[in-house]
């Protein structure tokens, strides 16, 4: 057991820090800091994605032949942690972290050759077509149909909660190609060009006032059969593979710590709520800091297990659950520190485009972020689903 990084790891950390010092511009940091939504806007994440790509760091989880940097688990942890500490935007996960691994694992050589470089270099912007209005946690009940017509599928139906559909030129989707068997069977995994005729996008505003998600309608949308991943009817398998990536969570402590620091910074300033020398606030900050310490050490334990080739067990639900709960605790505390400034509702978006507002800039994202953060315990497997999984896999119930 060794609680410090090796010389190689320290050298890598230094390299990451140097890269961040030069590539992460003050404008990027400001824009990310003023982003109250869950995902970074495309106009924030794209430049950062390109900067990473130019360094060969855009796709940490990919194998070398696909353009991944072949990092150890420790390096991935260091990279994510340093990026979070520095306040870097997040790269849109739909390409690199979601559809990318599916194409790498299940795609044809042609699909790999076509899509992976465009993901890596930020030429395509992807969105995810999984949820439907009636499906909720019961994803397999999806109804959007793809009917074979020659060498095309003709797609009809609707997807909801589609993050950044209004930015995306590509969607990966689960569609129903057969409804005669079990509902999990007869689902296929398909890649859809978002510029295809017959697609309409309806924005859905979040309670924080942000346009992040959408409903997407398909009206006789024709998609070439070659856009199907793997076999027809096995889409559920591919989709689950991807969800495991989505739920992984993994390296969140550093980002939470930055969020808590934002609360501390506000409490040191003029925000008219609880000041930093309020003992009750100090205790709450400590509670959250300790929660983050626990999460971070759990992450490091998992990272160590991966590093030594061991299976860390069924911990991704635990990480997701605690990350989302701690995030919500931080945003709630931030609202307490705002005091009466929480009453001011700024509807303009993006916030980083505002030239002047009644509130100091440091306070601007707080209330929208609190509101939007309610989604953390709902999307990507609600906390209720996570508790079901934990009871089953960790407690054996």
């Amino acid at each position, binding site marked *: 057991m060794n609680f410090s990084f090796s010389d190689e790891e320290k050298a890598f950390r230094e390299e990451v820090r140097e890269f961040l010092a030069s590539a992460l511009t003050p404008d990027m940091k400001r824009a990310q800091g003023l982003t109250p939504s869950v995902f970074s806007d495309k106009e924030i994440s794209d430049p950062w994605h390109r900067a990473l790509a130019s360094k060969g760091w855009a796709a940490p989880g990919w194998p070398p032949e696909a353009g991944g940097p072949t990092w150890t688990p420790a390096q991935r942890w260091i990279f994510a942690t340093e990026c979070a500490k520095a306040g870097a935007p997040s790269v849109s996960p739909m390409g690199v972290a979601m559809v990318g691994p599916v194409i790498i694992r299940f795609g044809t050589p042609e699909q790999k050759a076509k899509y992976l470089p465009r993901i890596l270099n930020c030429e395509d912007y992807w969105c995810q077509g999984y949820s439907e209005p009636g499906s909720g946690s019961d994803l397999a009940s999806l109804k959007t149909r793809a009917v074979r017509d020659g060498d095309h599928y003709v797609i009809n139906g609707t997807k909801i909660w589609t993050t950044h559909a209004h930015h995306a030129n590509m969607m990966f989707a689960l569609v129903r190609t057969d409804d005669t068997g079990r509902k999990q069977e007869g689902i296929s995994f398909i890649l859809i060009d978002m510029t295809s005729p017959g697609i309409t996008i309806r924005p859905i505003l979040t*309670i924080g006032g942000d346009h992040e998600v959408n409903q997407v309608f398909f009206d006789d949308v024709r998609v070439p059969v070659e856009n199907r991943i793997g076999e027809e009817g096995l889409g559920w398998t591919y989709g689950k593979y991807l969800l495991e990536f989505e739920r992984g969570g993994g390296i969140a402590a550093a980002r939470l710590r930055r969020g808590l620091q934002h609360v501390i910074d506000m409490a040191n300033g003029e925000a008219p*709520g609880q000041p930093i020398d309020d003992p009750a606030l100090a205790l709450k900050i400590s509670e959250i800091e300790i929660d983050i310490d626990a999460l971070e050490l759990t992450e490091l334990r998992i990272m160590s297990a991966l590093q030594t080739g061991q299976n860390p067990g069924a911990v991704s639900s635990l990480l997701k659950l605690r990350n989302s709960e701690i995030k919500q605790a931080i945003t709630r505390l931030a609202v307490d520190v705002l005091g009466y400034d929480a*009453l001011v509702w700024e509807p303009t978006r993006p916030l980083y485009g505002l030239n002047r507002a009644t509130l100091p800039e440091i306070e601007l994202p707080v209330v929208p972020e609190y*509101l939007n953060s309610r989604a953390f315990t709902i999307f990507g497997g609600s906390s209720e689903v996570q508790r079901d999984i934990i009871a089953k896999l960790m407690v054996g119930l």
Partner: protein
Amino acid sequence: MDLTPTEEQRLLRESAGRFVRAQYNADARRKRAEAGEGFSAATWREFADLGWLALPLPEAHGGLGGGAVEVGMLMEAFGEGLVDSPYVSTVILGAGAVAAAGSSAQQADLLPKVAEGALRIAFAHSERQARYNLADVATHAVKDADGWVLDGAKTAVLDADEADLLIVSARIHGNRADAKGIGLFIAPRDAEGLTLTTDLRLGGGKVAQVGLAGVRLGADALLGGLEDALPVIEAVTDHAAAALCGEAVGMMQTLVETTAAYIKTREQFGKPLSVNQALRHRMADMAVAVEEARSLALRAALFADAEPVDRARAVSGAKAKIGRGARFVAEQAVQLHGGMGVTEELEIGAFLKRVVFFDAMFGGVDHHLKRHAALSAAGRAA
């Protein structure tokens, strides 16, 4: 001892409920919000016609002489429909201050107009540096031969943009957080040197920061001629907090009903969500929170005219526990609505925003717990 409503109270509560259900459904609220209009003058006249504006005002000046219990019932109905009226700012805070501290002339001048719906008054007291300490007033008032000159800044002034008058607190003498030496001044909204920075308010309505730069007021602008108005400020603030507690109860009630209806009908895996015991138990806890809030809001109203320390303890106790309970209910209502809960497509989010407003107004859970403990310290000493 009888805590059941009188016939009169029951009728008030029912008529308010009917009015709100008829006029404050989600569609109407959305339309008003999209039209960007403030609170409708027509509705305000209807409030006047229904006697609601006169309700807590003294009978000598056109009021009905109702108490905090009646106000609480009205507010509960408002909460059920998320009514975004300037009722608390004008009737409870503004007119409440006039009724509590105004001279006979000031009362006779202003209160009947409020009761008729012809005058709106905003209450400009809080300051940013005060952090909810009601005695912390840096705005100062200097007397000269022509009257008063006010300089300073106020924050979190509700509905100032549509008010005719502002009641502004200012320090006449003493140091910044002294209990003594604070006066309340009647200032026209369009007084020279008085500037408003108005924003949308979280959960509905508007909120303003008020700037006061050499604002000249007449010698008779000082409410009741009173140079020690802190007890009045504390009393009307407690009354307003109690009223908001009543409103919060109504909001919590609607959230529980809406959420129960949702999980009974929304199906997943071929069954309604309500088959999940974890969700049913969550809703049981939400229902318990509503009942506890109902009891404490009523308790705060019942203590509204008690000795100041008893009143303050009852109000702070209610504000703290309802603040926490309402947050729990609203957040869980969002959670149980799933994806739909975190959009502006449903009303749930609007309720959550109003709950955050409620919690921030006059101080949050920690502030009121601390106030409760401080007011209780003497009684707990050996």
